[in-house]
């Protein structure tokens, strides 16, 4: 197939991931957030798989698999279970109104495109486009962590951020496997650590709202 075609597909999938990122910002209910996140992970898996196909880099299939199984299924289920078990109330508490969040998100996308534009020579168009998309996803993930109050939504924001990272990694031509492994590794550990945390927090508090944790905030002198 032609270079152009493969590029369009990659672009399309990348755009889907980004849209999912916006979707995360848009949701008002925690479960919906989880579903959107799962969708984003699926799209990510697709992107990885497509890159594997295009670059003839079989190891990227592993990444795709990880993304699909772990992020698209395991994590959402785990969080789902946590919410059920700990009886977290189901609405997203926003620090910044959804409308504004969207506007800021758009601005961030514009910024990342502006940043990537000068990158022309040598770097293939493929890299450039997906780079812009990946950076936008990263920034949107961070934006979500900032503008959402629940611990769960923060975790999801963090994951979305990492999705952006993976998107960048997979679209980087021939980047060694070590990186994907490390990401999977880190995400895994991240989850376990979160789990431990929630567990401890459960011991102490009835809610997962971070605000409870921050009641002390160090050194009151």
């Amino acid at each position: 197939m032609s270079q152009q075609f493969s590029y369009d597909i990659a672009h399309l999938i990348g755009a889907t991931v980004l849209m999912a990122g916006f979707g995360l910002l848009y949701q008002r209910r925690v479960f919906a957030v989880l579903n959107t996140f799962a969708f984003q992970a699926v799209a990510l898996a697709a992107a990885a798989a497509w890159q594997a196909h295009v670059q003839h880099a079989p190891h990227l299939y592993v990444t795709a698999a990880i993304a699909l199984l772990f992020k698209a299924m395991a994590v959402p289920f785990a969080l789902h279970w946590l919410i059920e078990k700990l009886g977290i109330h189901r609405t997203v508490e926003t620090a910044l109104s959804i409308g504004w969040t969207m506007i800021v998100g758009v601005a961030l996308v514009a910024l990342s495109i502006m940043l990537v534009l000068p990158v022309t020579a040598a770097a293939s168009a493929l890299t450039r486009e997906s780079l812009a998309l990946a950076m936008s996803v990263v920034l949107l993930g961070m934006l979500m962590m900032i503008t959402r109050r629940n611990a769960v939504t923060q975790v999801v924001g963090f994951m979305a951020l990492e999705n952006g990272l993976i998107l960048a990694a997979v679209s980087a031509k021939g980047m060694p496997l070590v990186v994907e492994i490390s990401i999977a590794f880190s995400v895994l550990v991240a989850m376990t650590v979160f789990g431990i945390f929630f567990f401890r927090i459960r011991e102490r508090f009835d809610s997962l709202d971070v605000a409870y944790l921050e009641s002390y905030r160090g050194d009151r002198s």
Partner: protein
Amino acid sequence: MLIAGALMTLPLLAVFAILAGRRDFSHGVVYAGCFVASAALLAGGLQYLGGHSGAPSAVLPLGLPWIKAHFRIDNLTALFLLIINLSAAAASAFAVGYGGHLPQRRRVTPFYPIFLLAMNLVLLADDAFTFLVAWECMSLASWLMVVSDHKDAENRRAGTVYVIMAVFGTFCLLPCFGLLAGPGGDYTFDAMRLRELGSLGGFLVALLAILGTGSKAGLVPLHAWLPLAHPAAPSHVSALMSGVMTKVALYGMIRILLDLHGELSWHWGAALMLAGGVTAVLGVLYAVLQDDLKKLLAYSTVENIGVAIIGLGLAIAFKGDGQKELAALALVASLYHMANHSVFKTLLFLGSGAVIAATGHRSLGALGGLLNRMPWTGAAFLVGAAAIASLPPLNGFVSEWLILQSLFKGPSMPHWAMKFGVPVVGAFLALAAALAATCFVRAYGIAFLGRPRSDAAAEACDVSFGMRASMAALAVACVVMGVIPVTVTDALTHVVRPLTGIDLAVSADLGWPWLSPVSATRGAYSATILVMFGLSLFAVAIFVVHRLGTQATRRADPWDCGHPEDIPESQYTGPSFAQPLRRAFGHTIFQARESVTMPEPGDTAPAKHTVSMIDPIWQGLYVPLGKAVDWIADHVNKLQYLTVRGYLLMMFGTLVFMLLVVAVRQQL
């Protein structure tokens, strides 16, 4: 080499002091060792003051690896070695009898040798790094001795203010040397002498040098720490801090401004001169109103530093104007005053130490009548007081005379700033000298004369031989330096020659005993002849009186206008003595206010007279500064208490900001 050996022994003494501090004899041993070492350094200074060319230097593989540590002894260094180690030797000898009995002696003895070592190294250093290391060690060692009596919160506060001001000084000298060394970073003094500073560079170097060394010397308004810190230390240390460390600071000022700095414009001379004048007057005004003997001495140090700096400023102004001869004269005068002040201020602080040792009191209000009980200390202190009051034939007057002589030539400069500035500074200087006399009449009269104001003072008896001997030696030095001034000025001309490039004729066309700088027609002064003449007149007077009149003498109660009061409280006290001056000067400068509360008629309670004064510089400069810092700190401190989201927001903001920066710079 004598000097090297002496410097080696000092740190060993410190180690010994730490190890053997528990044994009481150890303190005596350490101070004796310090005495020997400083005597050796004194000899070394004498040996090199000859003024023969080719100053000996040494390089040790220490400090900055590619610079190493350079040491050098030129005439200036040799002179200050002399000044410093004379007082240091006296103070150490005094401390042999004194330092062992202090309550916190173990917190003083180990740092004392380090202090001496550091001060000497500052003089010997020939590169910026070594200089600053020694400079800062000097501050730290003295700081630790200031807080040695640490249970007293006042001392702790004094120590904190002191060390912060000291570091402020260092942080002024650091960039100053940075500019002198240039971006290449060649920190040796030789390289600095060769460097061409631009106009801005020259300006900054001069400014920073004056701030840095001035803050250590006690130049108003950077003097705030001095009257707090100097009295807080034990007296033999106060003596060194006031008498010696301030001279080290002035050495630094001379070294940078007149030696390292290529050419300095006369403006700086004018500025220094005015600053010195203000410092002198303010310092002595503070001093004359103090009731604490050591605080009084510390403030008088501020005054004398001001006087010395007037001379220095004049020298710089003349030099900038190309009038080398007058520059040399002013510089000689300034150096002479530094030497004098280190001698008599050390003497006076040691005297105060003796008083404290004998009575346990520092406040004038608890002293009195000590001359009859401590004749040696009293006599020595009297010499010191007369010298610092710049009375002939003692040394204080010689330097004042020289400074006035060079000041009177100031209007010969073409700049109107000098033409008008010089008379004003002259008035300041004269006022300062006269007030100094008042200040020490008051101090001596109330502490040593009259009747004792406390039992401790009544039972006081004179101190041990060593302490008396060291004070006596300094008193003799005051007299000698006053009576044969020409010998001293001859030595000083060696020092001045390389700095001003001219050989000053201090006794022009009149010969040895006549001090008549530049030319005899300017006016001359010969302490030698005055002393002989005056002594003979004194003898004649006594002889005649005893021949014509009766010798009969009777001891009786004081007459006191017919109604003598036998309670010592009826005497004039410090505050009452200062009252006229307080009304004349203090009302505006210190907002001194007096309030009298009279009891109701029939009420037997005593009437109360209270005086309130505020320190204008502390209130006007330091307090607002502290408030500003506190305000900022309070607001910055809120960042400690944000939520995790808040911190994430800060991160995110930083990231976006930097991305924007990159985006913008890429577009450009």
